[in-house]
């Protein structure tokens, strides 16, 4: 396993070059840094493009954005917010409803680099999978957060939410937030593979629900070319989403429709056969098998 783990993506690198095999990873890191930079530019360099934090912000003094999950907790806690926050939440929900809710997770969330690093180390050290609660656990955590909000009349998850805490920490001062981030890193590295994002984080669960009908999707369009190297499974943080699309029978859609997919695009990067690509929900065409090896059955166009 350890040999294989280290070899994930080697073929893709050989065929597409390192950059080509890390395209979306690089773009993603750029996006994560970019979002952070937008927020940090104000307090650090006096460049006030975006004020506030991921929980609520004001861009160029006009565009309000509100974290919809925080907003929802505020609602169930019994506060009807001002119009600014309502509009802000609607804009964010609309955006992620189109983009795939968990696009937030892989392209924006500041915790993602932490859990990605943990996962990288986890695989490097070839550690066992560890504690693997059901993925639905995060939905239960989400429900618990909303129920506690309603009962206590406070925005409950914000007391422990590492996503907003880390972001706020970078912008306003860390306090003990670093300990919390370290705890998540260690948890994901030593105790549970993809433990935080994959099983516990209610923010990810929430965005999964938001994006359950989203338009932007990854498709295993050229699945006929798949040579079963399993590299995509190895890199995907939510690998269960791949099979239905990749291993679907003729007539099954090649689209990854599972809302757990974070639209990170790593499967596109790591596949030497170029099986995957970004497309939209209504494009369920299958591509002709590529010129590479692997004889494939006749592709089906639906």
């Amino acid at each position, binding site marked *: 396993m350890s040999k294989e783990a280290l070899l994930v993506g080697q073929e893709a690198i050989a065929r597409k070059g390192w950059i080509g095999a890390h395209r979306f990873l690089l773009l993603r890191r750029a996006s994560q840094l970019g979002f952070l930079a937008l927020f940090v530019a104000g307090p650090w360099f006096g460049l006030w493009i975006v*004020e506030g934090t991921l929980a609520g912000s004001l861009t160029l003094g006009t565009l309000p954005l*509100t974290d919809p999950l925080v907003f929802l907790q505020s609602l169930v*806690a019994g*506060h009807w917010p001002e119009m600014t926050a309502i509009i802000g939440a609607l804009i964010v929900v609309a955006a992620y409803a189109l983009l795939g809710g968990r696009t937030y997770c892989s392209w924006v969330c500041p915790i993602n680099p932490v859990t990605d690093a943990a996962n990288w180390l986890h695989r490097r050290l070839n550690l066992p999978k560890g504690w693997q*609660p059901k993925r639905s656990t995060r939905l239960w955590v989400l429900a618990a957060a909303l129920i506690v909000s309603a009962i*206590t009349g406070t925005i409950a998850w914000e*007391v422990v939410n590492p996503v907003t805490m880390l972001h*706020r920490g970078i912008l306003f001062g860390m306090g003990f937030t670093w300990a919390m981030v370290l705890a998540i890193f260690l948890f994901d590295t030593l105790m549970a593979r993809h433990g935080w994002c994959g099983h516990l984080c209610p923010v990810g669960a929430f965005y999964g629900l938001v994006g359950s009908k989203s338009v932007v999707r990854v498709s295993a369009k050229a699945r006929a070319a798949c040579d079963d190297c399993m590299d995509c499974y190895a890199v995907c943080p939510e690998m269960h989403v791949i099979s239905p699309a990749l291993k679907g029978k003729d007539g099954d859609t090649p689209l990854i429709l599972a809302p757990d997919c974070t639209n990170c695009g790593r499967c596109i990067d790591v596949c030497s056969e170029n099986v995957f690509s970004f497309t939209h929900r209504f494009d369920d065409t299958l591509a002709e098998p590529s010129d590479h090896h692997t004889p494939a059955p006749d592709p089906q166009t639906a």
Partner: protein
Amino acid sequence: MSKPNAPSSAARRRFLTDTARAVGGCALAGTGLAYLVQDARALPAEALRPPGALPEEDFLAACIRCGLCVRDCPYDTLVLAELGEDGPATGTPYFTARDVPCEMCDDIPCVAACPTGALDPALDNIDDAKMGIAVLVDQENCLNVLGLRCDVCYRVCPVIDEAITLELSHNERSGHHAIFLPVVHADRCTGCGMCEKSCVLPEAAIKVLPQRLARAEAAEHYRKGWEEKDARGAPLVDGLIDLPDRLPGPGTDNLAAPGGFEPSFKLPEVSQ
């Protein structure tokens, strides 16, 4: 529960235990979270909320901890509570008067910035703010009470002569000086903290406390007779006998002072 093709009993049992485990785990996590929430609600006495902040319970339901109020405060008065270091619920805004008081901006930018209404946009006159109440907590060390003319808190108060007044009284110690006692009037004090910030003592003698600490609450049934009488325009009970008032000081107990009266009989013990 009853699906057309019922799962085998093993699968069903597995489903039930899984669900029970998930529910149990989440109940546990939820309880832990509720406990944390309770804990995080405790505010240290010196933490004051920004102007217009809703009452604390409502505030914690409304503030999304975005920090926009902090960013728009021109005096860097407000800070966001940091995890583990500040008492107030992590991420919510507050200020400490002794560090940086609120300068009571006319346009109240912090309130204007708040997207949720956690800082009530209905507050349009900063003089109506109720961030806390100044209290002369140490009447033994306040220089004015000692008979010296410090007056600093009085002079810096943005609502001078309304929120703080100086009440003149005789200085018993020196016998021929006056004491100018700083007296705070809660209905006008905004809790901005300028007085506490400026108090010349190493530890302020006047402190701004949140309402819940600074103010008593009169019992529900308690009425001030004179106010009720004014409101009614007549005595509350018709034909009420107006008993004579006793005057303070020596010589009043024998009731021979002016305005007093001689009772028709005297108890034996009372006579000197």
